[in-house]
């Protein structure tokens, strides 16, 4: 696989349209055009049912676009691309494997030698504070710990593209804050290209270098904002004026879209 030129976007979406249920069916995505460059952290922000998850699933090769073009490294996405890391809202851990085996799943399913990847798996677990839980079954972990394991799993093979579909959506506020901080630290460290679906304005602004707002039914790109915020962030950033300015802006946009009423 030839690495794309740095100036070349890693993801190109041109007029991507996705309809479910034939011609008269539901249009989930309507002519989405979006470029993502290597190393960006793009939040896909929008209300439930705006198609942002569908867009992510198209990128993951789990759905085929109805019309338009979707390229990864300059090539159309036909199935799940190589070099993909993925995390869902439900952690999708396998209950019958221990934590370490779960983290190693991408190596096992990718047909690689699992043993070679064990040091890396243990390093990832250490990074999220789960080094002592390597041989524990997921059922013994809290929701936040499980989602950490899922993130380690998504990072095992050093993905070029990390897709996260509301990974913290089911967590309580405090755990969510912690995982936001953890994820930012990991991303700031290795700068893997990340697309992160969320409906939380705070989460989107805190984590990303760029926020793409989707409008609901059919999903369209309503706004595309590159954030001018420091590269290294702590949770305290969320009280800074520039952070609040962005958050207020997105909230105002949601209000004009009729999604929230103040």
């Amino acid at each position, binding site marked *: 696989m030839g690495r794309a030129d740095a100036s070349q976007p890693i993801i190109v979406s041109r007029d991507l349209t996705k309809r479910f249920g034939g011609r008269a069916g539901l249009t989930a995505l309507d002519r989405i055009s979006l470029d993502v460059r290597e190393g960006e952290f793009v939040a896909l922000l929008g209300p439930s049912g705006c198609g942002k998850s569908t867009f992510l699933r198209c990128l993951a090769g789990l759905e085929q676009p109805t019309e338009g073009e979707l390229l990864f490294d300059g090539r159309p996405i036909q*199935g799940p691309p190589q070099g993909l890391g993925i995390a869902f809202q439900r952690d999708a851990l396998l209950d019958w494997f221990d934590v370490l085996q779960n983290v190693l799943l991408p190596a096992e*399913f990718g047909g690689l030698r699992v043993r070679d990847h064990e040091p890396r798996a243990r390093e990832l677990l250490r990074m999220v504070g789960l080094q002592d839980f390597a041989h524990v079954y997921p*059922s013994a972990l809290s929701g936040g710990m499980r989602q950490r394991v899922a993130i380690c799993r998504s990072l095992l093979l050093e993905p070029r593209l990390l897709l996260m579909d509301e990974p913290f959506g089911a967590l309580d506020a405090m755990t969510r804050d912690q995982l936001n901080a953890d994820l930012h630290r990991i991303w700031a460290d290795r700068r893997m290209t990340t697309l992160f679906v969320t409906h939380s304005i705070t989460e989107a602004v805190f984590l990303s270098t760029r926020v793409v707002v989707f409008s609901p039914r059919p999903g369209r790109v309503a706004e595309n904002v590159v954030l001018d915020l420091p590269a290294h962030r702590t949770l305290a950033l969320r009280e800074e004026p520039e952070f609040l300015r962005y958050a207020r802006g997105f909230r105002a946009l949601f209000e004009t879209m009729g999604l929230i009423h103040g």
Partner: protein
Amino acid sequence: MSRAGRILLPLLGAVLFLLAWEVAVRILGVRPIMLPPPSAILHELSTAPLWFAEQAVYTTLITLAGFAMAAVLGVAFSILIVEWAVLERILFPLFVALNSVPKVAVAPLFIIWFGTGSEPKIAIAFLIAVFAVVIDSALGLRSVPADTLDLARALHGSRFKVLVRIKLYCALPHIFAGLKVAMSLALVGAIVGEFVSSGRGLGYVILTAQGQFDTARVFAAIAILGVLGVVLIGALDVVERYALPWRHRVAPGSGH
């Protein structure tokens, strides 16, 4: 519940049931030929314990053989129909139709085919038991959450790996539920087989004792069958606990 409570409470239930039975039969003066008291049944068992044991072992072996066949072939068949939709369309309606034929009605045919040895009895036990295994394991193999399958696809998991690393594990609790039903049904099948033609086994004991109006002996055989059922299902419970450690223990026993 404590370990002692798990064993003692059901035992207490059984003892109370037997006591009530004994008292009721004595107070109401029921004729032993209609319903003997538990004490008479116990006495019957104590007259020839080894002979009863021999019959019980024979029936147990028939049951286990039929059950084992049902378990192996049932799970294999469910994998085939779940993995290949075409096979399901071709075979499943046929399977349901065959299962709808009363096995008791086919039993005499098996005597013609397999003779009067153990084979026809095992075949009947298998036939009666296999349906439960197929239905439950097919359900289990299909119970994998959608995002788990998405994950497997995104990780380029081969079909074989998805089957043995995800689907089969996911199906295990369902498979065990099916196996427990199958075990009881295999026991029924073994008795049916022995009813039709046999010189051994608890079914044979019941049939011959009935012919002699030896009600106590009929009940003795039935009592053994009851205990046998509990023991066989209990054994499956133990196997299940070892087969699904993640449901019962916090961490695997040994590192790797």
